[in-house]
């Protein structure tokens, strides 16, 4: 889906006038025309990488907040040119630090908050508020506009809403921006926060939102694993609704694994699982941890212990019948920088019913872009081999967010809730 621009250029207003202006916007003789009665979506949209690239002149502006193919190509080239490791993440601090060197102080056109993928706009949001922190020191600027989504579908009745962009450096957002957000909240409508950045950054701003009752959309692939798990722990303890795009991207893996056991004839395999190995791209283990936790929850396993070294992470579980299950998370360098670190790329599941190899089963799931020779090694071919290719998830974060907005009841999904519980148990097992 293509992003949609607002029909009118957002109007810059002093931040004290924003609230009044928006209230007047919807006063009309036509009582039906009072704007959408849906939800408010607040987006933390730092786009640090894009800001650096534009300021450095490596990418033409304006800044949009969208990760375009041009940006991806430029970053890949920059990584090569600077001699950084090929697997450097787009979010790595090292990369950003290098890009931040010798930046100009010029102002560039900044369209953040004016582009929305149509999958979000067709949900008819009542109010879209973008927090657009700037690299350069800058006081708060606010922009407002009415917003009418355009849809090519006749079955969707577009209803207008409004959008607000709050731009300024992080300190200004922290001091003034959050007050503006407070004034703009519509109490009777649900309010979502999409933290479209690393969980490591601006913890005071993130905490502000977690304390203010927003439904949260985060991405635990962005941010250090320790910080991400701590955030999950805090949110869980305070009973906040958590939606995680890293969990959403795991959907194809959960579905593909479940599909294998749809035929009743294969279900006994589940009772005899002894080993699970998960390959991930890069060394960010959260998604793999989610996958293992989900499987163990569904099959009623108990967590025993975790061991970590630089090569891999081993986690041991116990089946209900007392048998041990050994699982491992193996980080693999793919020789390609990626935006979402730690995506699952392969899974091997071994189920043993006897000492005779041919009576046992090996299930291998591999993603489309990675060969599974590694997982087939070690005599797996002597077992009954079930192999499945898992489609790569190509949907954008905006699309995943729109799915969450359209389907979530505002609470943490029960599947994810149970998964977090076990993932935290494993994490705490490591800390202890």
């Amino acid at each position: 889906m293509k992003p949609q621009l607002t029909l009118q250029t957002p109007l810059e207003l002093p931040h004290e006038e924003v609230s009044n202006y928006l209230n007047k916007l919807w006063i009309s003789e036509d009582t039906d025309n009072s704007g959408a009665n849906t939800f408010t979506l607040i987006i933390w949209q730092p786009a640090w990488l894009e800001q650096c690239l534009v300021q450095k002149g490596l990418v033409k502006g304006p800044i949009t907040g969208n990760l375009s193919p041009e940006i991806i190509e430029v970053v890949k080239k920059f990584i090569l040119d600077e001699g950084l490791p090929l697997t450097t993440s787009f979010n790595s601090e090292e990369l950003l630090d290098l890009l931040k060197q010798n930046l100009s102080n010029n102002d560039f056109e900044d369209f953040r908050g004016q582009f929305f993928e149509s999958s979000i706009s067709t949900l008819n949001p009542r109010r879209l508020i973008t927090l657009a922190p700037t690299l350069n020191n800058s006081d708060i600027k606010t922009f407002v506009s009415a917003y009418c989504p355009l849809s090519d579908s006749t079955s969707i009745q577009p209803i207008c809403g409004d959008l607000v962009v709050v731009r300024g450096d992080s300190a200004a957002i922290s001091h003034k921006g959050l007050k503006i957000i407070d004034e703009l909240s519509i109490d009777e409508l649900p309010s979502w926060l999409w933290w479209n950045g690393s969980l490591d950054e601006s913890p005071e701003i993130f905490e502000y939102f977690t304390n203010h009752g927003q439904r949260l959309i985060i991405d635990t692939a962005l941010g250090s694993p320790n910080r991400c798990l701590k955030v999950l722990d805090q949110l869980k303890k305070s009973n906040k609704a958590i939606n995680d795009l890293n969990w959403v991207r795991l959907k194809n893996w959960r579905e593909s694994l479940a599909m294998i056991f749809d035929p009743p004839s294969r279900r006994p395999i589940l009772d005899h699982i002894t080993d699970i190995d998960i390959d991930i791209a890069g060394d960010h283990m959260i998604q793999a941890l989610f996958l293992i936790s989900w499987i163990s929850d569904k099959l009623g396993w108990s967590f025993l212990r975790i061991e970590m070294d630089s090569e891999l992470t081993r986690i041991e579980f116990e089946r209900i019948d007392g048998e041990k299950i050994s699982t491992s998370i193996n980080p693999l360098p793919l020789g390609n920088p990626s935006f979402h670190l730690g995506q699952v790329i392969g899974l091997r599941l071994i189920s043993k019913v006897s000492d005779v190899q041919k009576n046992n089963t090996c299930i291998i799931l591999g993603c489309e872009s990675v060969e599974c020779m590694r997982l087939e090694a070690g005599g797996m071919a002597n077992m009954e081999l079930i192999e499945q290719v898992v489609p790569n998830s190509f949907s954008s974060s905006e699309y995943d967010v729109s799915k969450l907005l359209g389907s979530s009841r505002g609470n943490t999904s029960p599947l994810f809730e149970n998964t977090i519980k076990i993932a935290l148990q494993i994490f705490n097992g490591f800390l202890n």
Partner: protein
Amino acid sequence: MPSTLSNPLRLGLRQERVISPQCLVIFGASGDLTHRKLIPALFELYLQRRIPSEFAIVGCARRPWTDNEFRKNMKAKLSNQISGKEKEWEQFSNYLFYEPVDLQESQHVVRLSQRLNEIDKTQATHGNRTFYLSVSPNFYASGCLALKKAGLLDDPKKSRLVIEKPFGRDYSSAKKLNKIVQSCAEESQIYRIDHYLGKETVQNILVLRFANTIFEPIWNRNYISSVQITSSETVGVEDRAGYYESSGALRDMLQNHLTQMLAVTAMEPPGKFEPEAIRNEKAKVLQASKLADENAPWNCCIRGQYGEGGNISNRLKGYRQEDGVHCNSTTETYVAAKVFVDNWRWQGVPFYLRTGKRLPKRLGEIVLTFKDVPVHLFESTIINPSSNQLILRIQPNEGATFKFEVKSPGSGMKSRPVEMEFSYDESFGEPSDEGYVRLLADAMLSDPTLFTRSDEVEAAWKLYTPLIELMDNSPWKLPTYNYESMTWGPPESDQLLSKDNIFWRRP
């Protein structure tokens, strides 16, 4: 050990749509359909956690029951389904209410309206209502008018009207009924139910055709030589003689269920998977359908009536010996018809439809027979190489079979047919929901995709008008042939196909 009866990894993965708070009002709540289909379907939706907590089911009928009597009656009738789920039933039964209503009495409907307002408050259903007319078809029109008069259909966004089949007795009565119903509610509020469309396997025809690239290119007159659509029952008329005597197999099954299967099989791909896009295509294909010989319709239709049958230990009565059936009844319990779809895709391809009671097997299936290869290069192990067939099994043993020729093992080059199988049971291992579960949920979700629109219903009646006129005006031209119970209909039905050098598939 985790239970391997169901797939533990599948639990929670399905993202079912959740029904919004509302009140479902069932007229005819003391009737068979309510306790045989509707309440079990609603209970199933409850077990699947798809019923919101703000919900109410209000049963309405003439009997002077109380809420508790209604709950008790339903519990007694559903004892088999409830067994082992008593706790769940107790919770579910809190949603059940009852109001004695005779739709012909306007003060009853006004009283109902007041009761619904009260229930809106206690159950927080926000005035969102679905009215289900499970009454005698004679009361559809007056029922709609009564609801309209009481203002219960005024809000097109908050009120829906579900109407059971049969919708009319013929083209003109269906048209008249449509006019009345549409004067009471907008078309978007009207849900004409055909429970065959609620079957997973019928919906699968759409997926099979439009989610695979291999079928659609050959799904036309260039590759398909004929299509057979069968729906057979082993049971007789049972206790439905009163209704069946005035209806017969053509009105009861052929005009709706089989014709809907024809529409889904023959329709063009819709531009989008949206209700109106799909219903447009179905309506178009029905409008393009006609009897194979409209000028001499007796040449393209066979009617039959089951006679006695069975064996010494289990003698089966003939139709005319059934309770409530006239001893000289000519009502058909079997009908077979040959239909053409006059469009670019299907020109010249015969569609044979048959349905009947007391046939040897209960089944529903669609058989697409492909054209012969242009030249037979290989000798067959049987007399002639058989044509490729794609068999879509609607019920039972839901699934599909593809029949094709392979080389028979050995030194020669003889061909023989083999079958490639897909079975819902083997692949998914979980029973699919009853059609009513899906359709009730869809109606409450305001999703009309699987309901028939007014133009579809009218086109389906129009298709059979020459036969209905013949049955009404010159029934001797379309006689009802007798067939022995538990056989595949009258022999004349075989001749309908053998004229074209085709045979009914013996399932």
